[in-house]
């Protein structure tokens, strides 16, 4: 009735089952936790628009002039009527040809490589106090307006899922998308590495008044 050969067979079978079970860890649905999102659930969150080809751009459209009025309402308080930027809020226009300057001005017009990214960012992150509350039409219109402020599209431009991917941004070709680092090859010299006479302090943070206090309560750096 009890037979060692059978016993071994049984254990062999269990062992086999266990290996299959752990191999199945790589199989989709192995754990089976969670639910399958419905199409409506996915649609609600699936907001991304791909920068280089505009995949994900929704239906809808907006003109430069519509954009001008939405911008005045929702954006100008921070970014200025013409995208010049109030205070330290970012400039959205200008800066063309400054990227090699001592003080470059990267903006949508002078720096951004892809137009659909502008739709994507306004849609997901702006206006800063109430992000992701604008209609697609308004986001298209704002995109058109900001591109127009940068002289990238004409006054009668209408932004939609067809027109945006076709725009070639002025700085598009200046990006290298592979990391060239390491780009330095320092050697770990241990003694007499440089001439002691050549050790010169060229810059100091002493006394420039830029450093907040690092003791006591937070320092807002407002003059007292």
């Amino acid at each position, binding site marked *: 009735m009890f037979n060692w050969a059978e016993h071994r067979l049984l254990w062999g079978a269990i062992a086999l089952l266990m290996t299959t079970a752990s191999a199945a860890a790589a*199989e*989709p*649905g*192995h*754990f089976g*936790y*969670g639910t*399958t*999102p419905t199409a409506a*659930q*996915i649609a609600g*969150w*699936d907001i*991304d628009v*791909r*920068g*280089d080809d505009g995949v994900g751009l929704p239906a809808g459209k907006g003109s430069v002039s519509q954009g001008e009025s939405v911008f005045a309402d929702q954006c100008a308080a921070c970014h200025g009527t013409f995208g010049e930027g109030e205070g*330290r809020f*970012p400039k959205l226009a200008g800066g063309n040809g400054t990227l090699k300057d001592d003080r*470059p001005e*990267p903006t949508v017009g002078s*720096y*951004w490589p892809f137009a659909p*990214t502008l739709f994507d*960012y306004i849609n997901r*992150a702006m206006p*800063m106090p109430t992000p*992701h509350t604008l209609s697609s039409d308004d986001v298209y219109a704002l995109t058109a307006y900001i591109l127009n402020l940068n002289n990238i599209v004409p006054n009668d431009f209408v932004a939609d899922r067809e027109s945006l991917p076709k725009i070639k941004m002025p700085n598009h070709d*200046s*990006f*290298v*998308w*592979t*990391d*060239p*680092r*390491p780009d*330095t090859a*320092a050697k*770990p010299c241990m*003694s007499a*590495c*440089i001439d002691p006479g050549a*050790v010169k*302090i*060229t*810059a*100091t*943070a*002493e006394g420039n*008044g*830029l*450093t*907040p*206090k*690092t*003791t*006591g309560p*937070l320092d807002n*750096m407002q003059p007292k």
Partner: protein
Amino acid sequence: MNKRPQAAKRGNVRPILWRGIRGRNLPVISKLAGQRNVALGRRTVLGLGAALTGSLALGAESAHSETSEMSPPADAPWSQSLGAGVVDRPYGTPAEFEAGVIRRNVPWLTAGTESSISFSPLQSLNGIITPNGLFFERYHAGRPDVDPAQHRLMIHGMVERPLLLTMQDIMRFPSVSRIHFIECPANGGMEWRSAQLNSLQFNHGMISCAEWTGVKLSTLLEEVGLKKEAKWAMVEGADGAHMNRSLPLEKCLDDCLIVYAQNGEALRPEQGYPLRLVVPGWEGNVSIKWLRRIKLGDKPWYSREETSKYTDLMPDGTSRGFTWLIDAKSVITFPCPEKPVSGPGLYEIRGLAWTGNGKVKRVDVSVDGGVNWQTAQLHEPVLSKALTRFTLPWRWDGKPALLESRVIDETGYVQPTIAQLRQQRGTNSVYHNNSIQTWQVKADGSVFDVQLG
């Protein structure tokens, strides 16, 4: 009932102690106050009192041996009274004397505090783990306070079976714990052009390190099943910025973690509660906080945070994109501008080193501005993509000195000088300044952030 008299008693301790400390150190204070006023303009004697209390904790001050109302032979009030009972503070807080050890910001850096950063007080931290309340902050649209019961993680796109997970679902998956640093690539970014901030905290405090617990991203990606065409993942947060970045699949399957815990407790809201991504060794902004969505695709997304921002502008007008790696970096955390030395004698130079490329192999220290170097001692544990501690005994002769540290990582990469970096990248690239920090020690022991030619 019980609480009031005790609180009153403890309340009494503070003024006495403060009087004691100020009294003992008055000559030092007025001396330092003189210099600091030159350096910083608005330092008050009170502020320096706090600074000295802080440095007492380091044990570098001789004040310990002096007598006071509460030192030997006297018995201190806390030795002659009953202390507060358990659950007096059901969630513990640091000693009140450490009140100045906090995250701090540089108000002039950003338009507001909602898209901004704060810095960890490295000058007051010991060891490789950053306490949760002092972990540096970086928000793009402020800190959302997410309800974990409502939070969901959606994984979809080029997958076999799209998935919607609750926090409970995520916590059921096999769990792992790993110690990793997170560093903002803009750490040290204010120093590309010149020495600007006279502070360890403000020049290097956008790095922190924690033990993270969660599920491997690879486990979740196996569970949904990747389609053949899937090459990239877009990861997105539930904050107002809906902050999103693209990650190559290779990295996702290598060592990325989806975590819900930080140093043993639930993530702090500041670090992404209830769920964040940790991308070990890569620039902090890809470790998306308040993670709510992962979408698989065949190409990167080129989002605003990887085109307009987090790209490195070179002097020839070209820009480098997808520069994710945190190169090897080290910094001396004592002495530093916040923690000066107090007279000639023997000190332990202390510091931190890290690399996104694996483990720290060696750290060398120079006290003469890089002419001669000595190898420092590394302290266990030396973990991959984690902060590593180093120390070197130093007998200071009281003469001006230029302190530097230089890390070499396990790939053989050597931390460059700022001059070497500028030669390659100019001064406008904002991110990834991993250059050697020079601290100038003056004859009076004060320490300043300087750059060498």
